[in-house]
């Protein structure tokens, strides 16, 4: 009985929190399906047959540029995840497995990257990107985001790699695998849950970021969706239908990616390796 009550209390609190967290998102989604008058007249009601309208979606998908903004966002996010995971895992593996001269110093250097916000270096980054001739490219964004996310991902992945039993790597060495093959065929499969965690951590800030798209790719059709939506926010008039519709659709890719990674998050893969 006691347990029942406390279970109900816990679920109640969690449910309330979920509602609180989801409320703004639901509000955006509801209102994206309403006419402009209904958005302002009764923002908290669900769309009814009389207030239902797809005008925002029509405008967003009618604008040929918006499609390419999505592609930009997806390409930048996916590229960033890919390179962050690849280089992060490689660096983490090298720092944990091999004893070399600058090992500790290098690890320290990377951990400083966790503490210093990359935006402090914005001016230098712009100069660098300009002189590399990468302004208004997705490559510039991917490079900057990868640099931004590497330190933390190296930190997290190192912890996991250190937990892979030493015997396992040595068994692979006896089996004749090269160090590269040990990395790709033993280490990577075993740290998949950690990589999924890192991917989720990396993905959301990158997808949502406005700062670097604004600085590094503000024009030339390489805007990301977060930046692209700004075109609907005018100085004098804001097209709320379009903004809400664009925001609602922008949630979908993140949600899909999250579903993909979260399946990995739950798995504990190393059980059964030793003992």
């Amino acid at each position: 009985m006691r347990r029942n009550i406390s279970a109900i209390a816990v679920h109640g609190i969690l449910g309330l929190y979920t509602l609180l967290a989801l409320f703004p998102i639901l509000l955006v989604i509801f209102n994206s399906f309403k006419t402009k008058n209904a958005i302002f007249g009764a923002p908290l009601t669900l769309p009814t047959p009389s207030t239902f309208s797809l005008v925002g979606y029509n405008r967003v998908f009618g604008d040929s540029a918006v499609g390419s903004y999505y592609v930009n966002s997806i390409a930048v996010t996916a590229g960033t995840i890919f390179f962050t995971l690849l280089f992060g895992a490689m660096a983490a593996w090298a720092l944990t497995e091999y004893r070399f001269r600058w090992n500790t110093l290098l690890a320290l250097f990377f951990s400083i990257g966790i503490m210093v916000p990359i935006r402090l270096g914005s001016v230098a980054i712009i100069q660098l990107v300009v002189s590399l001739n990468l302004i208004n490219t997705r490559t510039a964004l991917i490079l900057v985001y990868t640099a931004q996310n590497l330190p933390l991902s190296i930190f997290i992945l190192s912890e996991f790699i250190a937990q892979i039993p030493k015997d396992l790597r040595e068994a692979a060495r006896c089996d004749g695998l090269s160090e590269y093959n040990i990395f790709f065929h033993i280490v990577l499969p075993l740290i998949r849950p950690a990589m999924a965690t890192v991917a989720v951590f990396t993905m959301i800030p990158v997808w949502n970021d406005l700062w670097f798209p604004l600085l590094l790719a503000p024009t030339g059709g390489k805007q990301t969706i977060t930046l692209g939506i700004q075109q609907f926010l005018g100085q004098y008039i804001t097209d709320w239908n379009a903004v809400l519709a664009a925001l609602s659709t922008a949630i979908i890719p993140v949600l899909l990616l999250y579903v993909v990674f979260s399946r990995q998050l739950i798995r504990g893969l190393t059980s059964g390796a030793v003992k």
Partner: protein
Amino acid sequence: MSEVKIRNLHKSYGSVDVLKDNNLIVENGAFVVLVGPSGCGKSTLLRCIAGLEPISSGTITIGGKTVNDLPPAQREIAMVFQSYALYPHMDVYGNMAFGLKFAKTPRPEIDARVAEAARILQLEPLLKRRPRELSGGQRQRVAIGRAIVRKPQVFLFDEPLSNLDAALRINTRVEIAKLHKMLAATIVYVTHDQVEAMTLADKIVVMNKGRIEQTGKPLDLYYKPANLFVAGFIGSPAMNFLAATVKDGKTLELADSQHLNVPLPAASKPGDQVTLGCRPEHMRLGGDGTLALKGTVDIIERLGETGFAHIRMATGQTIIAEVRGDPGTSPGASATLSLAPAQLHLFDASGQRLG
């Protein structure tokens, strides 16, 4: 030919010398067991042979080829780890086939070798299982299977049975002995377990503090230990040691002034400090008194038909003697221990065997 020769092997971690001047020959097809107290360098020696640890100096040859600078894969060895070290993300087949795939072995050949190993180790019904779905004994067999399929020149085992329960350990020990016969394999095997060492080995290597103390056939080590360390290490319970002084050509005086008439080597002079060793199983309670020690019974441990009597001498030292059947005495009673003259061991002051 897959003889392993180790000459003047040194290994140090920084300033710590872990292996000092090790010399060892493992003959083709021999089963050599490394034993010694924890931390004496057994695993390190094995890992040096495997190529997982670089050596500081000396040479290692396998099958006539010096392998000092070769990576593990090119040494034609296979190692079975204490923790099994199975790849958790692959099934049993995958675990066994993994190394072969990277060696670019043709697929039919891989299948044939895995099937053969699975048949020998009775793993056929388990080929599709992941390691976490196997019992400890099954994992152990997979680990051995992974070694077999590579057809190595030398098998290296590092305490392969220590994670198994007592019954399974005996079974697997017998299996390994059969496997050794069947494959005519050269094996270097590390263990803590005396019984494993005595039953499996063609040759036992006793190590202590990074040095090889003695190398020999199991019974030679038992009957003729070269020094105090080996004498105390081989045999369970351990050999009893009594400090003594040479009185004359055939008499020893013990610390508690008892005299024993023992055949002494010609070279020993009166006044020499020696250590007399006698195994519990070579002592009897009671007896005629020609070669006898006197003391008090401390406790008697009965294990069934046999047991061990702990006898306290006047010096406070406790001597353990094996008893069979009813010892006919009880704690607190005074006791006489008879020693078998042919089974006595004498060591000089530096711990080396005399005679």
